[in-house]
């Protein structure tokens, strides 16, 4: 088998992280489960947010998991892609807004 840093089969082993620190693992997964329950936001909306964040943090496990989760919750393709554009806009905007800092610095040290 080809060796890569990411193995899709590892996603289903996520729970194993509790083996070396059971208490913190349990707290994390309890919290995780609570976060995704319906609250002020629907489970569907939360899944779309998770999909966008998954792309922003570029986690292949999360992308697999929340692409499927969005499908399961009836999200359509256009909605999924729009969520990614939100992530992309924020990431792009986060890079570009630093352009102001760049401009400030250039002005500061220029004659």
């Amino acid at each position: 088998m080809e060796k890569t840093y990411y193995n899709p089969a590892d996603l289903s082993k996520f729970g194993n992280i509790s083996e070396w620190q059971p208490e913190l693992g349990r707290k994390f997964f309890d919290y995780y489960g609570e976060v995704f329950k319906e609250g002020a936001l629907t489970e569907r909306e939360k899944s779309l947010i998770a999909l966008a964040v998954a792309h922003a943090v570029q986690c292949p496990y999360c992308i697999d998991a929340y692409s499927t989760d969005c499908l399961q919750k009836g999200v359509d393709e256009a909605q999924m892609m729009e969520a990614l554009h939100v992530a992309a806009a924020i990431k792009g905007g986060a890079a570009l807004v630093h352009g102001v800092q760049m401009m400030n610095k250039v002005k500061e040290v220029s004659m």
Partner: protein
Amino acid sequence: MGSTTKSLKSQHHNFSDPFYQLNVLQQAGSHGEQFPAFTARLREHGLFPLKPTGTTILQINVGKMCNQTCRHCHVDAGPDRKEIMTRETIQLCLDALQHAPQIATIDLTGGAPEMNPDFRWFVEELSRLGRQVLVRCNLTIILANKKYNDLPEFFRQHQVHVVSSLPYFMASRTDAQRGDGVFEKSVKALQMLNAVGYGKEGSNLLLDLVYNPSGAFLPSGQKAMEAEFKRRLKSSYNIEFNSLFCITNLPISRYLDYLVQSGNYEGYMQKLVDNFNPEAAGGVMCRNTISIGWDGYLYDCDFNQMLDLKVAQTAPQHIRDFNLQVLDERNIILNQHCYGCTAGAGSSCGGETIK
């Protein structure tokens, strides 16, 4: 997923053979490990042997002929299937029902049940017996031929409960599963059903939709999905309906073929196994339903019927020998495909099985 035009049977495909399918379901995965036996999971939760809770529904498959050839169909139905329930066998069903007043609901399925030449007579006779008739109408049949155009009115006259598949509220995923142009025709048919009162508040004419995933994933959240379907169908097409039933695709027949061909079989089975829910298992439909094949043989469910797994030998095998008391004592026949009915919130012909 894309539509096919021929049934697996007419292609002499391996997956048209129940024995071959059951063999695939028993095989070890690529890591050499077998999926745990379904019966063992039931035993862990005190549900084995699985017994009926009392039969109240008779699901009758009146034939495998259909005007559609859906990519996921567990019946392997299509225009080239000629198996049709005869009037004599229908009469045997009616005779059996005379002696089984506890069976309140008759669930007619196929194929497209309306293509059975004795369909209307059967519905009329069932109405006369005072039973609730449920028809699993694929919607497009209403537009398939002029002779079917009046089906909404016929259903209305007999207060038929209409249950129709619509895997998505857009054409993309619907047509991928059910064939090109099916969504557009389904929308027209739903509007025709609405026009005679189906799905309208206060009409007492029930129109339920069935959602099943167009791909290798599970359904989730029936209530939330129903709300989304209602919102989207109303705003885009002014369509109304009563309830949405979320159904999991079982790994048999054409859907099993799709899973294997697309490389999704192992992952899908693992998902079903990982999501085994004992509460859902307690409410499976085989506990209150008996399934009858087009030739009159008896099964625990429509899926077992397609795998040729007849009811246990301790019980009558054919409708001519129908004896509900003995049937309600039988052990239900189980196999690995049963994981499909017990995953997550459960799955049945009436949607989720958890309360």
